[in-house]
């Protein structure tokens, strides 16, 4: 078991006579052995002063390949203009090399600081020995060690060879900078791959080229669990450019598990050709027939009817405080509603793909655009029955992740195909494959029953959620229906109930998983409660929050919720100020709505200004965002991009759905999704509220609030309370008729 808190360092000489600092995480047992020899390079200082840093986390557009090396360079006082960055290999010493859940910053901030501090301490020590001065008397700046007394300077390059002969530093004794002395972190930095992107360099997974490469499609049934009955393999073999065609039986994952998270892959037919288009063309004559009885009844219409029936009763109690039933019975006013959010697809622009090359020792080498490099390696090894050391994974830049690449299915498939074909193969899914074989954001249904007391305070908050299960007991991946959401936490009494519908549909994590649906239902309903209480939606929320902050100040120990209501109130107050909330005189058909949510360790409040036409067409004109992700945004340029992207994606999530018919998706390609394009994108005002907390990630927490903010703004604009997504003109018109 890797203990991420325990760092070890090794020192070696880099090629050409520089310093090579290796690092890894390890248990104490391994530490001594590993420290005795080099554990691989991570920071290289060349004699000419050039610095190479490795990036150990995958890059999916969230900036990890820029930000993590920035942290090292900061503590090292490297000259950023002379730093080159490469992906690290995928090895156990780095622990889990994955990106998701906005965890990259919080989990790597301290370790990467220590790596940088270790490199700095070695270079300073080398200078101290050269000058015969105490190391503590020296300073560093932009790739040089400085003796402040004499003004002498020595470049890191000239010290690297001497530093390489020093013993590894003790991680416990490293001195980290005070953040007030940061010169790189907290300042805008262009992404390290941006110049390569604008030149069209082949840096993405799908661009991988190896000698002798052939191209594959893998034809699967669009219905999960279907079995291949027949296919005309010979007809496909006769197509131009086709080199191999074969069926693979696949490997079913353990019961209740799904491919992508457990060993296994789906059955199908691999077609390999000299280019991808020829392989994909040959599908047309394959005439694959499937036994698709596994999909019978797995239709969104059916799920919807099941869920609404279930919501008439009670669910399994997941959490509660106070006596909800008594509070409901004694309420001055009761409010009930049912909300629904649909299945969604990820639609990362780079379709799923992976290049696999069989190796001479019977193993396989993968070139993977993935969020889960470690899982891709381990699941490939387990699925193919290979020892882990015979599977090598090279990280490749991903054309979007959004949680889709948390599943290693394409990597495993490519390995299985290449091993059988005995040739290097680039597997690329057609967009239709990508839509048909996603791990969908599971649909959610939520019934609310709430009570208001005579002062308009929420006295009872019952929320019964319906999601899905694969094993009959636990929620399907990405399908949690209960969460520490503010409305329940702040009510005098609350009960969260959960019910689960069996499904065969693969489900997974979509950017801000669970929160992207739960924010809609909770913050939409909280808005309804504010209006039912006759109060302003911001003032209503803040009144409940302030009461709790006052109570929490008295509470001690385990009575405190992990959600810091004070931080949530902080961003809400500020976004109300910045957006001019409450101002009169908005044009007819224009409304402002608010949403606030805590997810992925970040606190965000957002106000949307939305224009709704008489026909129910709507457009988000502007979104104000205030976020609290702690004491520093490591790279504000990249951080603002993550926030703006979250707003745009949140609006896309408002506009899309994936329906199923007997296990098969109804949409098939991009035109079936009303994704946000440039004319639909709002103006976005972004502000970070700096607080005295450790820095956390920005890939996700800005996304959830915009969804209810827009829905609540539609209500403010025209009086249509929409409780089902997607937010279509038809639903807005129907809601208007219902009022």
């Amino acid at each position, binding site marked *: 078991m890797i203990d991420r808190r325990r760092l070890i360092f090794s020192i070696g000489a880099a090629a050409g006579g520089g310093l090579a600092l290796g690092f890894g995480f390890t248990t104490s047992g391994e530490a001594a052995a590993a420290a005795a020899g080099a554990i691989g390079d991570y920071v290289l200082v060349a004699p000419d002063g050039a610095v190479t840093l490795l990036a150990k986390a995958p890059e999916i557009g969230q900036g990890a390949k820029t930000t993590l090396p920035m942290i090292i360079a900061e503590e090292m006082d490297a000259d950023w203009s002379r730093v080159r960055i490469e992906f690290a290999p995928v090895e156990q010493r780095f622990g889990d090399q994955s990106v998701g859940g906005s965890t990259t910053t919080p989990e790597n901030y301290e370790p990467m600081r220590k790596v940088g501090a270790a490199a700095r301490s070695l270079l300073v020590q080398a200078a101290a020995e050269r000058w015969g001065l105490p190391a503590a008397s020296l300073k560093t700046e932009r790739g040089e060690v400085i003796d402040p007394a004499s003004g002498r300077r020595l470049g890191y390059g000239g010290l690297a060879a001497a530093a390489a002969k020093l013993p590894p530093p003790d991680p416990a004794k490293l001195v980290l900078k005070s953040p007030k002395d940061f010169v790189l972190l907290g300042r805008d930095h262009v992404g390290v791959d941006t110049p390569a992107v*604008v030149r069209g360099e082949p840096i*993405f997974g799908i661009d991988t080229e190896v000698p002798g490469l052939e*191209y594959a499609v893998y034809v699967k049934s669009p219905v999960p669990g279907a079995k291949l009955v027949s296919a005309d393999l010979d007809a496909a073999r006769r197509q131009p450019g086709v080199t191999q065609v074969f069926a693979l039986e696949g490997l079913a994952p353990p019961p209740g598990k799904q491919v992508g998270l457990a060993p296994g892959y789906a059955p199908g037919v691999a077609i390999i050709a000299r280019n991808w*288009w020829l392989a994909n063309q040959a599908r047309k004559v394959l005439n694959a027939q499937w036994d698709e009885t596994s999909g019978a009844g797995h239709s969104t219409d059916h799920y919807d009817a099941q869920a609404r029936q279930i919501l008439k009763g009670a669910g399994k109690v997941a959490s509660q405080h106070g006596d909800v039933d008594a509070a409901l019975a004694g309420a001055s006013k009761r409010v009930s509603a049912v909300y629904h959010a649909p299945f969604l697809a990820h639609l990362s622009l*780079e379709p799923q793909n992976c290049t696999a090359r069989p190796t001479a020792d019977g193993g396989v080498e993968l070139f993977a655009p993935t969020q889960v490099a470690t899982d891709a390696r381990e699941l490939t090894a387990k699925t193919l029955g290979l020892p882990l050391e015979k599977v090598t994974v090279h990280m490749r830049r991903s054309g*979007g992740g959004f949680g889709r690449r948390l599943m290693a299915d394409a990597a495993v498939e490519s390995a299985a195909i290449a091993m059988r074909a005995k040739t290097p193969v680039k597997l690329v899914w057609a967009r239709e494959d990508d839509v048909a074989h996603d791990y969908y954001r599971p649909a959610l249904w939520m019934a609310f029953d709430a009570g208001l007391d005579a002062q308009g305070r929420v006295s009872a908050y019952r929320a019964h959620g319906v999601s899905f299960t694969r094993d009959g007991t636990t929620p399907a991946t990405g399908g949690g229906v209960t969460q520490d959401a503010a409305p329940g936490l702040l009510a005098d009494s609350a009960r969260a109930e959960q019910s689960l519908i069996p499904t065969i549909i693969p489900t997974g994590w979509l950017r801000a998983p669970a929160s992207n649906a739960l924010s809609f239902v909770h913050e939409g309903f909280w808005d309804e409660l504010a209006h039912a209480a006759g109060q302003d939606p911001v003032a209503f929320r803040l009144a409940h929050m302030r009461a709790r902050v006052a109570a929490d100040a008295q509470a001690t120990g385990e009575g405190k919720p992990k959600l810091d209501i004070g931080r949530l109130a902080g961003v809400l107050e500020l976004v109300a100020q910045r957006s001019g909330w409450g101002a009169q005189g908005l044009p007819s058909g224009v409304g402002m709505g608010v949403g606030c949510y805590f997810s992925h360790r970040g606190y965000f409040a957002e106000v949307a200004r939305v224009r709704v036409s008489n026909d129910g067409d709507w457009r988000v004109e502007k979104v104000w965002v205030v976020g609290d992700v702690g004491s520093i945004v490591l790279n504000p340029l990249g951080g603002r991009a993550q926030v703006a992207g979250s707003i745009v994606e949140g609006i896309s999530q408002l506009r899309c759905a994936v329906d199923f018919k007997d296990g098969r998706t109804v949409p098939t*390609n991009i035109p079936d999704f009303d994704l946000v394009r*440039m*004319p639909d994108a709002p103006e976005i005002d972004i502000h970070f509220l700096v607080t005295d907390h450790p820095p956390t990630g920005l890939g996700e927490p800005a996304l959830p609030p915009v969804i209810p903010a827009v829905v609540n703004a539609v209500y403010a604009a025209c009086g249509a309370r929409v409780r089902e997504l997607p937010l279509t003109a038809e639903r807005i018109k129907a809601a208007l008729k219902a009022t």
Partner: protein
Amino acid sequence: MAISLRVNGRVLTAEVPPEMPLLWVLRDELGLKGTKFGCGVGACGACTVHVDGAATRACLTPVGTVGSRQITTIEGLHAHPNGPALQTAWIAHDVPQCGYCQAGQMMTAAALLKDKARPTRDEIEGAMTGNLCRCGCYDRIHAAINTAAGVEA
């Protein structure tokens, strides 16, 4: 059959069927992987190239229909009259997140600026609406086009 193409000022030859889309000839046969595959149905714009200067969806363009017309891909954008300004602006604004759509975005933008040196907001949105960005870079794409055009946003 052998098909000759004029790509980024060079003549390149591929042994491919005439109905094969230009996208896949560029990527898999000619080794020019900057042009990207997104949807295969002309709906995302990731495969945008120039054919005689016009922004064109390479995934829907049979290679046999190109003839002797000049093809420009992202790899040849630097030689386009607006190419260097766009590339500089794209870096200054750090437009890309994942970056996968950017070749198509920049090729569309270059064709726009050739037609309209100082496009209005509506003209920019009209030209760029066919180019999908799943990371939501639209505000920075817009700003970078204005910068490249010398327009104060």
